[in-house]
């Protein structure tokens, strides 16, 4: 982490933690609301999980405060996995 000009506070960590808990509850609720095993259910669960992972990486793993190169690396990895899902989706949707 570079300059520590904006060091995280406990309050900030607690807010992040609370957000993660709320999103977990929403995940459980969404699984009932969408039928549990449908394509929609899986898509919603993955979307919420991605948002949660972003919070963890950005706030708990301090990427927010780190050098731009790390953000670029993570962005590339995210795009890579997105492209895997798109290519897999082409097969699954059209098989």
């Amino acid at each position: 982490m570079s300059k520590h000009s904006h060091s995280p506070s406990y309050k900030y960590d607690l807010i992040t933690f609370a957000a993660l808990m709320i999103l977990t509850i929403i995940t459980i609720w969404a699984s009932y609301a969408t039928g549990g095993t449908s394509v929609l259910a899986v898509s919603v669960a993955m979307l919420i999980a991605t948002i949660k992972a972003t919070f963890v990486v950005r706030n708990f793993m301090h990427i927010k405060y780190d050098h731009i190169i790390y953000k670029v690396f993570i962005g590339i990895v995210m795009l890579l996995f997105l492209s895997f899902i798109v290519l897999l989706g082409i097969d699954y949707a059209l098989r």
Partner: protein
Amino acid sequence: MDNHAIDSHLNFYETKRGLFSWIFTLDHKRIALLYLYSISLFFLVGVALGFLMRLELFSPGGQVMDPRTYNQVFTFHGVIMIFLVIIPSIPAVFGNFFLPIMIGTDDVALPRLNLFSWWLYIFGALMALGTLMFGNGPADTGWTFYAPYSVTSDTNVSMLLLAAFILGFSSILTGLNFIVTIHRLRAPQMPWFRMPLFAWGLYATAWIQLLATPIVGITLLMVVMERTFGIGLFDPSLGGDPILYQHLFWIYSHPVVYVMILPAMGIVSEVIPTSAQRTIFGYKAIALSSMAIAFLGYFVWGHHMFTSGMSDQARVVFSFITFLVAIPTAIKVFNWIATLYKGSIYITPNLLWSTAFIFNFLIGGLTGLINGALAADVHVHDTTYIVAHFHYTMFGGTIFVFLGALHYWFPKIWGRMYNQKLAYWALGLTFVGFNILYGAMLTVGVKGMPRRYYDYLPQFEFLNKVATVGSWILIIGILLMIYNLIRSARKGEIAPRNPWNGVTLEWQVPSPPPLHNFDRPFILSEKGPYDFSLLEKINEVEQKPLDH
């Protein structure tokens, strides 16, 4: 430079002695040699299994083993050669030894992690070997572990999968180490585009190791979970999807082909300028093509699955992207040839190994284009044509360069010269044997001989006999090379600092290097790593005694 001149002239062999000084060493050069000796051992085991397979296929019908053993032998041959030899080979041996030296530092960024990687490798290897001793023996699924058979086979599939999982961690940690080393420890006078091309190859490779390996790790664990708990992931009888397994497996296993070949291409990019005594043609194009291959390699996995039942649209997309990979690969080949053109070429075994690589890899690459073409692939899929294509790229490619690199850097690693006459003979036999073996397999595959078959029709007999004879010549060549290198390491002429007149940094350190690599400030050119106008200045260093 941060000059790490050390107090003595001791080379890295002499600083400490004893078994523990090796197996718990943090020195990147010693760890590289630990890998070299381990990988060489497994390579010989893999060769022996290949030899047995060729003996079995010498004539139709059973020869030296039963069908079940044959399945286990080709599986074990594949697992050993892929996971224990080719994937770690060049990065773990030559990357570990030469990357820090070539970028002007005294070790990798994370030496303890480096040692841990080797221990993980050994642990994974022992676990793989352990499958021989327990239960129903080693797996018989093929090295690809395709579901649903890998879920139902009564052999030691789970143990072998866990071994591959552990070996994957070793690979990830090595890749991570190289990325951090290249980012953080490059000499201050060495910006990205003055880095040697071998370092570029390792860098591109490291990203694949880091990003693709976890996918196969999880996939293999999913098979273990399915075998152990009956979760229906891949087995259709449990509600699973076997094509999903193939997708997940090849999402890793196609990029990993570039883990195997990109460092090899990096080494060829070192050997050729040194042999031609001129700067490399198209430095930036070669460097960036490594990154382009690494990137594009992530999106072509589906070409392994054209006959799997995947959707037509997906097959077209994967076929199209596959052809794109040929472009950066061809850029490299054209630039190597352009470098040699009108160069002051020194013919050495080093150069001939590299040119043999180019020859083999061209065959491997062009036969790969046929596989990438949807209509043609359907006909050759699951024939020995595919096996031969794969061996042309992996053996004729990576292993040929690995053996060539052993010759090129032999004086630097062991401080002695090898016997060139024997080296030419060994190379000649290996090259001829290799091409007879796999040329015959390409041909018999096109004629329709399926791969992984224990027995075959009489019309395939002649070419199978030719292939088996080729394997004998190949093995004689390899054994001759091993004899030559071992003998030369003990009794060869003492090597100078720069026997091949190279200009990259490893030729500016003593042979073998001292513990901290550099015994004096090194010389770097602003024109890039292959500026041969510096050669005289670099070679003057040899004459001057070190001032203390």
